[in-house]
């Protein structure tokens, strides 16, 4: 996805709102850069078994993870992205190749291949496919207002939003709280709060 297509720049405005649970350190730029580098995107190892990879990348270049101030800060906000790469196994294609191999095996050996031979061949085909596969890549923009500490995840998928939320909490080392009404209430008061019976018609 190119920078021009990014939702943070143009197009549909949809985002999940969060707020940093504590004040960031004084050297906020260094703190953020270190955190993002620690959770930086690493491509899928095509020789391994991994089918999915996710991590932070620069907003302007989805292959870059340097997070230099010139690429990350605009006005009083930090902008970066969450990249997700997936390998999609073409199962129908693999089934077809396995069927052709089975026919060739039977013609050569005068018997159909056994279960073990089929499994081995399937693994061989999968490895061969992985070595030339191109992962499908998507990026989701993230912005952090350094003044208000409001963090926006520019995505509509709840799975992606939760994944970015968890990654940020881990890398920033602090709670990142969803901007819902309950978040604005002190915890001791919130625990005592119950749904209003007259409004819920006794269903709460």
């Amino acid at each position: 996805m190119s920078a021009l297509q990014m939702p943070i720049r143009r197009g549909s405005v949809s985002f999940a709102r969060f707020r940093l649970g504590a004040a960031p350190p004084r050297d906020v730029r260094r703190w953020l850069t270190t955190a993002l580098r620690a959770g930086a995107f690493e491509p899928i190892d095509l020789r391994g078994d991994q089918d999915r990879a996710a991590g932070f990348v620069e907003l302007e270049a989805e292959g870059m993870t340097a997070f230099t101030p010139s690429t990350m800060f605009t006005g009083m906000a930090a902008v970066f992205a969450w990249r997700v790469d997936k390998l999609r196994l073409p199962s129908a294609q693999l089934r077809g190749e396995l069927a052709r191999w089975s026919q060739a095996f039977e013609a050569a050996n005068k018997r159909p291949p056994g279960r073990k031979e089929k499994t081995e061949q399937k693994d061989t085909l999968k490895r061969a496919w992985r070595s030339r596969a191109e992962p499908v890549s998507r990026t989701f923009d993230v912005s952090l207002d350094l003044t208000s500490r409001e963090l926006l995840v520019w995505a509509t998928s709840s799975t992606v939003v939760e994944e970015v939320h968890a990654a940020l909490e881990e890398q920033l080392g602090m709670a990142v709280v969803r901007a819902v009404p309950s978040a604005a209430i002190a915890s001791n008061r919130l625990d005592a709060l119950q749904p209003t019976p007259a409004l819920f018609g006794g269903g709460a």
Partner: protein
Amino acid sequence: VAARRAKSKETGFPKGETGVDGAATAEAVEPEVAEQARAQEALLRGRAWLGRECLTWLLWKSESTQAIASVEKQEVRVVFSERLTLRSASAEVKELLVKGVTAPYTRQVRHAIAAGLLVHGARVQLTWGEQVYVATLDAESFDVRAAKLPALLQEEESERLTERLELAARLGALLDALVLAFLAARLSRGWEGTVVPALLEWARAP
């Protein structure tokens, strides 16, 4: 039929659906009970009930067209339009969706609220000074969906990005102000004695 039942018992055993005596291992749950449980779970998840109370209170307050909050000394006005979803955790009708420019303020919606269905999702228009923002909200996450921001004034790409981020932050600030206005009422002593009766009176009006 008897042969089919016997076969069902045989196939159910390895799946753990039936015991050695052929009886079901778990009691079958009535669809109504399962639906009720799902509705209750949705109500409690992420304290969605508080979000529903908030959006319902906002709908009620917005009908007067008076400002509900202020940000940087400028009033924030709210209008619900286009579509509104109401949900219940107990009534026979679990969800009601209305569409239409003035649909959120119709008698049907008010009477549904009186019957225990509260606003779960809504398309709202927020006016702050000369700026108009439109967004879809839901009671559980309060995520902003398909929002329309005021037109960008800057022409340089980098300045446009900064301006867009500022407008998105402004929209967040307006939502925060509205939520705080709701919480001031919700956490006040008059909530159950004054505010809720007035809201229900509005909802029950013919």
